[in-house]
């Protein structure tokens, strides 16, 4: 698999097959660099072509999965349009979502990290130990140190898991606060998104 014939179609096919198989067995996304190194592929452009070729192949109607780039890695996932059928087939009623308190807490951590529980509780005006704990258990946030103030409280930051969960490549993909205000200015409907969702 280390030969160097970029125009050898058979080699390209075998490389694609290899990438498909490692993504298939791996639970987590795999960094492109790792694959690149293993294939001894020196040209990033060649590798990009390989990936685009794969992506194109998955577009075929007869394929149920697709190649996704998230958390800085490559991952195989099912196609979004099959979601309802998957739910029906496995008789899964609802996909569990984060609660509003968890989402609020996560928003604060994402934009203010590293941040302490006291700061989170203060911003929400609600004691936020509960959601912090639940986000720690879900690995969406992590302890990232201690703040150098009296009491040395723990600091929290978002994780790789956070990026994966929300389908981000890195934190810079989150819109800035200014962009966010613009995004929501037109469709100002405060109670649309919330309600009927209690801890």
């Amino acid at each position, binding site marked *: 698999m280390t030969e160097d014939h970029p125009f050898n179609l058979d080699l390209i096919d075998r490389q694609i097959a290899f990438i498909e198989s490692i993504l*298939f067995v791996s*639970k987590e996304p795999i960094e492109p660099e790792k694959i690149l190194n293993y294939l001894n592929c020196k040209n990033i452009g060649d590798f990009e072509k390989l990936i685009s070729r794969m992506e194109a192949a998955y577009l075929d109607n007869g394929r149920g999965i697709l190649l*996704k780039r998230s958390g800085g890695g490559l*991952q*195989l*996932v*099912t*196609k*979004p349009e099959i*979601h309802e059928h*998957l739910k029906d087939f*496995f008789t899964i*009623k*609802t*996909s*569990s*979502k*984060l609660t*509003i*308190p968890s*989402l*609020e807490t*996560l*928003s*604060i951590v*994402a*934009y203010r990290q590293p941040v302490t529980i006291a700061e989170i509780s203060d*911003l*929400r*005006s*609600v*004691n936020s130990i509960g959601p912090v704990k639940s986000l*720690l*258990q879900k*690995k969406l946030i*992590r*302890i990232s140190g201690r703040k150098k103030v009296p009491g040395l409280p723990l600091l929290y930051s978002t994780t790789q898991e956070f990026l994966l*969960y*929300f*389908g*981000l490549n890195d934190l810079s993909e*989150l*819109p800035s*606060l200014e962009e*966010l*205000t613009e*995004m*929501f200015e037109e469709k100002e409907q*405060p*109670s649309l*998104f*919330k*309600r*009927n*969702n*209690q*801890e």
Partner: protein
Amino acid sequence: MNETEIYQVQTESFEGPLDLLLYLIRKNKMNILDVRISEITSEYLYYLQNCQGINPSQEGDFLMTASTLIYIKSRSLLPRAGSSQEESPEDKLIHTLIEYDKIQKISRLLREMENDTLLLWKREEISEHFENREFDIEEVSTFQLAEIFLNVIKKREKEEYLYLESKNYTIEHKIEEILGLLESNRYLNLFKYTESLDSIEEIMVSFFALLEMIKQHLVMALQKKNFDSISVWKKSPDPQLQ
């Protein structure tokens, strides 16, 4: 407030005092930057008095904000004493509200992103066996490590309980029985446990016993996700920490 408004409101639930305040500001078509705190104070108190949409476990937080509102209102009625350079409580509250408004926006954005990614299923999403699972070192967080240590210590605090079975179900007996079961098992699967019971009466008494135990902080009940089985874990005070 007319009746239909009250009816609408009763279906609402507020995540915290700021959520309620923002709701009232929008309801009264005010601008956050130009809020007349004194006007929404009485409405806020009305909601609080009628427990409308107030999460009981957060009552304290709602009351805290109520006192701030009342303080601001009283200040506005009294002549200002001295020339205070520092931020007034009103400005501070408005600043907090502006920040919270942003948080809600981010939350909505995250919710939309969550909805998108929930459509994509990863491998082995179905059937997960947590019990005998191995962890990649990179997967383990300091939080988990601490959590595991806490559990080890708690397990150590085992007390040998003896219990007698009786057909005459009382809450006291049930509590002892469940505590006994929790001594020999790390946790109790509530669904399986109720399946093993003889009668509806016993199930009900068990359920009340459980509520009582949760209230007394003897146990906690956990559910991984909606519709999942509920597991009951023992909580024991740790003398090491006292």
